[in-house]
């Protein structure tokens, strides 16, 4: 089965209880939305707003590209992709 990795940063790491998990893709046409349905519920609650959109100030990236610059939650994913779930706005030196 094709699989992707999902990595959690900072508060999402604390909510998930681990840095990285592996998720099996339901099929060839899987999207970021499909993958994020399978992450721990505590993370989902923080990550999505009531409309099912990514809640500010969180960020989701596929292989380092933020999904805003791809197809949003409908971005297609494939075997071996790395999906990052991270808070935004870390102005860090």
């Amino acid at each position: 089965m094709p699989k992707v990795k999902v990595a959690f940063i900072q508060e999402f790491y604390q909510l998930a209880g681990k840095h990285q998990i592996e998720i099996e893709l339901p099929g060839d046409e899987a999207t970021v939305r499909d993958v994020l349905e399978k992450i721990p519920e505590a993370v989902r609650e923080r990550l999505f707003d009531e409309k099912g959109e990514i809640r500010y100030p969180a960020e989701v990236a596929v292989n380092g590209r933020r999904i805003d610059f791809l197809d949003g939650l409908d971005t297609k994913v494939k075997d071996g992709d790395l999906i990052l779930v991270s808070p935004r706005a870390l102005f860090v030196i």
Partner: protein
Amino acid sequence: MEFKLLRLNLTEWKAREEKIPESLLRKYIGGRGLGAYLALKEIPPGIDPFSPENKIYILTGPVVGTGAFETGRYHVVGKSPLTGILGDANSGGQFGPWLRFAGYDGIVVEGASDEPVWVSIVDGEVQFHLAKHLWGKGVVYTENIIRKEMNTPSEHIGSILSIGPAGENLSKIAAIMNDKYRAAGRTGLAAVLGAKKLKAIFVKGSRKIEIVDKEKFKEESKKIIDKITKHSISEALSKFGTAVLVNIINSHGGLPTKNWTRGTFEKAFEISGEYLAEKYLISNKGCWGCVIRCSRVAKVDSGPYRTPVSEGPEYESIWAMGANTTIGNMEALIKLNYLANDLGFDTISLGNTVAVLMELYEKAKNGSLPEEKAKELEELLGDIEPSWGNADAFAQLVWRMAYRHGIGDYAAEGAKRLAEYFGSPDSAIHVRGLELPAYDPRAINSMALSYATSNRGGCHLRAYAVSFDVLGVPDKFDPLVVDNKKVELVKYQQDYFSVIDSLVICKFNSFATDHTDYVGVLNAVTGWDMTADELLTAGERIYNLERLFAVREGHGYKDTLPKRLLEEPLPDGPAKGRTAKEALEKYLPYYYEIRGWEDGKPKPETLKRLGLEEFLYIL
């Protein structure tokens, strides 16, 4: 507004006071700006940075120590032995405020002493002390002894700035340290203090910082503190520190690994802020008057990397000594960070330099170094085997570099000189001689412009383009797409950060604020009537002034990147197959256009517009 400088003449062991006219402060603010102006006026062109003619300016700014917000920093300026142009560095902790409380807003270190010396400044009274018993000693020991001699055991009272053995032995990558673990790290200015034989400065006092309009000051600083504390970053920094960036930058393929030959590190999580917080963190700590408190306090209890309670490591140090040398062991990194601080090294330059040595060692083994150089390297290394990821070899090298034994004598010169000596100049990843920090511009393309045009050399603190390319502040941009709006943001940040370094406040303020927030506080403290635009123009003036220093030296104004970043595509990660060439070539002409520069030099009309007519002679 009064700004009092203390000139320390080390040749004669004499001190004298000097007042800086207010008109000069309005133009250059303080800190980095004032330092750049004084350096350009007072340091003769073409001098050897180690000669007594070089000067070190240790400066605060108008809001330092007022408690308005994060105002606990100081800035150091001088001619850099590493780059040969204007060098500067900034540090937090307590030293900046205590210098002002001791009676002075800045110190100018001049001349050179015959004997090692340290200086105490207590309530305006200056004393020179012999430092023979401190010479050769680490930073922690030095501070402990000075505190005993000054009868000031509490680390909450008074503050000490010092150099470690690295600075004494003129390592060009030595850091000026304060409050044991804080570093004004970059551009090797500690070695200039070493050449002047100044081991340390102790400051203590009870002078009150003058604030002209106290009511307005309270009101304006409350506005800023509210903005900062309500921003999500404050909590994030407090909880995980700067190292939280490791996983983020790694996932973008921009975490330079194995001396900039890769963009991702397989052990990134094991050297991340999350891992540090979970396994080794004792508490967090803040600079004087800080509400964010991003500094880490960690220790390693047992094993080969046992380390006492100390501050750090920060993101940059973890990357430079970790991913860049492929050391994926957090305990080793805590230990190396402690050693680097105590011996007085700039951890960014140190990590880069050791990574170069590891590459040279590999090249010597596989026959791609000139034969006689490979042989010499082997002899100089002796029993050290700096293979990739070898933390124990790294630890031994830090000592040898600090005291200049064997290969350490060559490595203490920094990455560029080390690589050149052994016939592999492109192994050193630097701009103007200063080793680059932890973001690969092949994956984060605005950093290509930011690094190439940074006046002090390879640096992420002139413009932190990562903020918009990766972190989405103030707006989101795709790090792999070339977009001229990013050029405008780089220029804005360069000017704005010049203001921040001249007020001498923390750049962590600036994720929640912009230049318009600070002018109110500055006016309240000084009684001025400056506008936000005038403040930003002062930043632009300072940026041009620094560039003029390089123009006058006749080198260091060519804006480019190391060959590896321009010609060798990243082999992995989201930026696989990319170099930084396209971005830099597209960004640079537009950057020069909006700066009013030509071929890296300000045009005469630009200097006139910024009120820098007195420096037209340099062009």
